[in-house]
């Protein structure tokens, strides 16, 4: 083992039922470096961390920690902590109802001679830890009195004080604002000086380039590579994460973009935002227009759509529908304005597995009418049959339980559900994820057909080709900010460059 290396993972392999979550992944961490672990959602970042910290058991591979003979297998977080590997997660894993000092020391409190907790000593030592890290706070106050950023830093302070050699920060910045992120980075750099090896898991590209020394990229459970930060410009990083070799990308020219006039303006969002998920954005959607939202997973694509739809509260700015300013407090308001949202997680938010295909289809329409104005059965059957035919849903009968259908057909049922409400504006969040090519094409065709009928759509997908085929305008998001719109020269290259941002690296 290299002198500087504090942690090596070799050939880590692990399977979840049916999926190879990690396939011979290597990872090396040196002391005094900040090492970004990058990859899209589902790439295996979290799983790798969990294998390291003992939450998941891995099947093959070895972990070595500096100063410990032989391979290391952790069985619990506590186990990992004892070996000098501490983790700070996205959600602060501290107790809000205890004081800052207790949170730093619980489980290892200083004791008096009688064996009782020595509060004085504990508070004194805590105050010192905080002062050393330039945090001037009263440690006797309850944790909940402090901001999320401070709590996050207290969690880090706890980890560091436990004499860790390896500090894992798993998406620590996702709920922090810019100011707070800056504070966190200062702390990270301080720790780096002290020789701690930091693993930084994040999907904010800006942040990676702001603090990291090295990047390891994972994709689909496999190692793509380890790169010093200087050798991996943004566009290449995005390409590595998405699995597209930049040179291979053939530009697909889109059709001549149809011109839209202001009279056709359907949705006009000005400065809408939701704290912590999406910064203020403007977005205009015309009648018959398909707008694509693109960006890496977690860049705020779904979040933007959720704010328009009222699933997340709009905290600033205004929304105009057909020129009228409207206030959407909840999805039902959006539905009444003729909007529909097809959520990306259809298992959790979309289908109701124990209801039949018919019941799932009429659900939104029924909700719109209100609970007490039940749709007559005859009408229900008509509607269900209409969409089963129109969308070619493959089901044994309209009374089959939806959970017995394949993923693609479930997706069609939900699509049918929204079409049944006859919306003017439909948001499709990853409508084609996890379904076969044939159905994908059908859904893409349907999107174009709906647009042709004068409906407006937001189309969100991770597959750029698919969006190029369907969208006439793309809005690009990065780190919760809408960074631009592309209307002309829609091509894979321009889109990917826009996603990566900081265009000067090439």
């Amino acid at each position: 083992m290299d002198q500087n290396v504090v942690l090596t993972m070799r050939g880590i392999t692990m399977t979840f039922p049916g999926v190879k979550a990690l396939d011979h992944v290597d990872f090396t961490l040196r002391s005094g470096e900040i090492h970004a672990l990058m990859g899209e959602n589902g790439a295996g970042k979290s799983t790798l961390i969990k294998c390291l910290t003992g939450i998941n058991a891995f099947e093959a591979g070895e972990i070595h920690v500096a100063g410990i003979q032989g391979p290391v297998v952790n069985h619990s977080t506590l186990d990992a902590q004892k070996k000098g590997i501490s983790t700070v997660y996205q959600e602060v894993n501290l107790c809000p109802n205890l004081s800052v000092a207790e949170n730093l020391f619980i489980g290892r409190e200083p004791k008096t001679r009688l064996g009782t907790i020595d509060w004085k000593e504990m508070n004194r030592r805590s105050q010192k830890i905080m002062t050393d890290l330039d945090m001037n706070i009263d440690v006797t106050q309850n944790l909940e009195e402090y901001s999320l950023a401070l709590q996050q830093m207290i969690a880090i302070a706890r980890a560091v004080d436990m004499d860790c050699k390896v500090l894992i920060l798993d998406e620590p910045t996702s709920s922090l604002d810019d100011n707070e992120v800056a504070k966190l980075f200062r702390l990270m750099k301080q720790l780096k000086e002290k020789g701690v090896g930091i693993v930084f898991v994040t999907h904010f590209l800006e942040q990676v380039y702001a603090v990291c020394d090295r990047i390891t990229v994972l994709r689909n459970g496999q190692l793509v590579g380890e790169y010093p930060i200087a050798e991996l410009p943004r566009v290449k990083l995005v390409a590595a994460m998405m699995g597209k070799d930049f040179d291979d990308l053939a530009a697909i020219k889109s059709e001549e973009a149809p011109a839209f006039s202001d009279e056709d303006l359907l949705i006009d969002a000005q400065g809408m935002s939701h704290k912590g998920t999406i910064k203020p954005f403007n977005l205009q959607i015309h009648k018959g227009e398909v707008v694509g939202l693109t960006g890496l997973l977690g860049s705020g694509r779904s979040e933007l759509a959720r704010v328009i739809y009222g699933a997340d509260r709009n905290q600033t700015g205004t929304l105009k529908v057909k020129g009228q300013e409207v206030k959407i407090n909840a999805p039902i308001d959006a539905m009444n304005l003729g909007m529909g949202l097809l959520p990306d997680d259809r298992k959790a938010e979309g289908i109701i597995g124990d209801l039949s295909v018919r019941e799932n289809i009429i659900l939104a329409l029924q909700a719109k009418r209100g609970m007490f104005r039940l749709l007559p059965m005859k009408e229900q059957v008509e509607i269900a049959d209409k969409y089963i035919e129109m969308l070619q849903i493959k089901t044994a009968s309209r009374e089959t339980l939806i959970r017995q259908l394949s993923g693609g057909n479930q997706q069609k049922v939900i699509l049918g559900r929204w079409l049944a409400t006859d919306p003017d504006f439909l948001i499709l969040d990853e409508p084609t994820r996890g379904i076969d090519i044939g159905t994908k094409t059908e859904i893409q065709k349907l999107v174009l057909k709906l647009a042709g009928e004068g409906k407006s759509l937001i189309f969100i997908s991770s597959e750029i080709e698919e969006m190029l085929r369907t969208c006439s305008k793309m809005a690009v998001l990065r780190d919760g900010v809408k960074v631009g719109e592309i209307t002309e020269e829609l091509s894979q290259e321009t889109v990917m460059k826009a996603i990566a941002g900081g265009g000067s690296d090439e």
Partner: protein
Amino acid sequence: MKTRKINSNTMLLLITIALFFVMYIAGCAIYASKGFAHLQTFLNILINNAGLLCVACGMTCVMLTGGIDISVGALIAMDCMLLAVGMERWGMNSMVLCVLVLAVGVVFGLVQGFCVGYLEIQPFIVTMAGMFFARGMTAVICTDQVSISANEFFVKLANMKIEIPFGAYTNSKGVLQVPFIRITVVIALVVLIAVFLMLRFTKFGRSLYAVGGNEQSATMMGLDVKKTKLKAYVLSSFLCSIGGICFCLNTMSGSVRQALGLEMDAIASAVIGGTLLTGGVGNVIGSFFGVLINGTISTLVKTHGKLLSSWSNIAVAALLCFFIVLQSIFAKLKDNKK
């Protein structure tokens, strides 16, 4: 920076304490002619509620973890029946019986705690089963109402007066009345202080708060959540058995219908005392005042003389509402601050 802010939880406790004093002083003013102002009235509240206080201490510990223990009333009935039948019918030594009762409490708590902690069953369900079991066992031991009179030592213990060196007065008949407490009050106060110190100064005590504050975090910070929960239920049942002995010393009898609904009084006392049902917040000092408020209300109703005793239930209900609303207002304020 050094000025200690009063946080909302301390605020709730202060409100409870203030409420008790307001209520008590009002009682003294209104019912002065009926002797409410004498020290003995207060001591009687303690005597009558000594058992409840022990139970409330245990209940607070369980509620701190975010759990609940509704088996306590039935367990007290079983304890009392065991003591009464043991002494009267089986002729057992009272001290041996007390130890036996405590042992039964521990075993009872172990089973419940295992189910909640390790099998991760809802505490409400587990302790409800415990409640049915204990109430049923009480009837199995004996269906009669059994009074304790034969065991001299126990009777003497129950009748023992511990006199207080101040607050004596001469009543209208010219007899000197020396205020006194019973042994049960001593037991209950010792329990109260012990649990208070335990919660403040031991790792187990702080773990109870941590588990109630955020279970996942507690696990992540390396605490043994399962064991902590197990211990909490053992403690609750054990303290409940101590309460059962106090209860028995007070009533000197065992019956199937004894301590019916006592678990609710204990929960009410804890909630009035500022313990959150969601766990993580609370203190036995609060619960102590909760018990006192409970006792004061029923004493006030009794002193009035013409009111139906059920009015004390209604008063407790109103107070509970008041405190729950207060708690949620404080929680809202805290959220808004962020």
